[in-house]
C-alpha cells in the first residue's frame, strides 16, 4: 500500500468531479412553471377530463384522438361525464387554451420537450395573423 496517498487523492478528485453539477447548482432549481388559464378556460372549470388526468395523460389522450380522427374518421369524444367534444387540437383545445405561450409552452419548456404539433396545426399566433 505504497500508493495510498495517490489513490485517495484520485478518489477525492473523482468524487468532486462527479458531484460537481449537484453542489454547483444547489438552491438554484428553476421554479415549477405557473400556468395561466384564459377566462374561457376558467369559466369552463373542467377540461375534457379531470385536471389530474389531463396533467398526466394529455399526450396519450391526444394520441388516441389523432388516431381516431385521422384513421377511423371518428371525430366526437364523449367524456365519462357524458359531454361531447369535437376532437381537434386547434379548434377544441386551443379554443379554451387560446394562450399557448402561457399554457402549453411554459410546461413544455420547463420539461424541455418540443412537440412538433405546431409545425402543421395552427396555433394562436398564426390564428391572429390570419
Amino acid at each position: 500500500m505504497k500508493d495510498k496517498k495517490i489513490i485517495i487523492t484520485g478518489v477525492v478528485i473523482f468524487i468532486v468531479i462527479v458531484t460537481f453539477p449537484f453542489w454547483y447548482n444547489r438552491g438554484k432549481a428553476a421554479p415549477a412553471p405557473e400556468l395561466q388559464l384564459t377566462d374561457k378556460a376558467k369559466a369552463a372549470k373542467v377540461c375534457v377530463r379531470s385536471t389530474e388526468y389531463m396533467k398526466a395523460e394529455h399526450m396519450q389522450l391526444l394520441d388516441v384522438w389523432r388516431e381516431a380522427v385521422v384513421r377511423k374518421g371518428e371525430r366526437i369524444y364523449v367524456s365519462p361525464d357524458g359531454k361531447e367534444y369535437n376532437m381537434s387540437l386547434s379548434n377544441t383545445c386551443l379554443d379554451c387554451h387560446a394562450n399557448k405561450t402561457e399554457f402549453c409552452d411554459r410546461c413544455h419548456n420547463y420539461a424541455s420537450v418540443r412537440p412538433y404539433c405546431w409545425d402543421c396545426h395552427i396555433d394562436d399566433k398564426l390564428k391572429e395573423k390570419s
Partner: protein
Amino acid sequence: MDSSRRRILQLLGLSSLALTAKPVFNAFAVEEHAEKPKAILKDGENALKAKQWALVIDTRQFESEEDLEPLVEVCNKVHNVPHLSEKRHEIKWIWGEHYHNAFPGKAARFLSEEVEHKPFLVLCNHCENPPCVRACPTQATFKRESDGIVLMDFHRCIGCRFCMAACPFGARSFNFRDPRPFIKEINDKFPTRAKGVVEKCNFCAERLAVGQLPACVEVSEGKLAFGDLYDPESNVRELIRTHFTIRRKQTLGTEPSVYYIV
C-alpha cells in the same frame, strides 16, 4: 442454515397460505381498474356515409381554365394548399390537365378541337385498388375501410415519396419547402403541412364528417356529382347509367372512383 424436515414443512405451509392471498389482490386490482371512467369515441351524427365515394365530372360543362378556377381556388383555400410558383415545388390537390395528359392512350391522333384545347379537371382518383397504399412503408397513406377514401396520415409520413412513384396519376405532391409562407390566406380550421411530407386530395373527409359535400362539388353548380358508387340509387350511379363515362388509365386496374362524362 440447517434445513430440517420440520422447517421445510413450515415453509411449504406458509407458501400455500400466501397463494390463497392472490385472489384478494386481484380483487383490489380489478376494483381500482373499474374506477377509471371510460370515454367513447364516435363519428358525428351528420356525417355523410358511403361504401365507396365517387365523383362524376361533367366535362362538357367546363370549357376553359376560367371554369375550373373557382373549384381549384376553393380547394386550395379550405385546405391551406400553398401556391409555389416554381414548377418542381408545386403542390396540387386538384387542377386542369390537357386531354392527352389526363387520358393518355385514349387520345387519338386527331381530336375534336374542343377536346384538344380545353382543360380536364384532375385530382386523386381514390382508387379502389390504390397502388400508393401498397407502396407506403409506414401506412401513412391508407384506404379508409368505412368509405373508401384514400387518405394521408401526415403524422406518419416520412417523406420517402414511394407513393408518388406508385401513383399513375401524378396526384401527389411533395413539400420540398415549408409551405406556410406560401399560403395566401390561412384557414385556421384546417392544419397546414410541414416540410418533408407528401400531400394530396382527401375528398374533403373533414367536410363529409360534418355533413357537407366536398368543397369543389359545392361550388361547381352541379357540374360535379358526388355520391356512393355502391348504392344503385345514388346520383353518381344514375349519371353513370345514363351517360357515357370514361376513367383515367383504366387499363392499369387501379379502379379509379372519378368518372368523366365526355
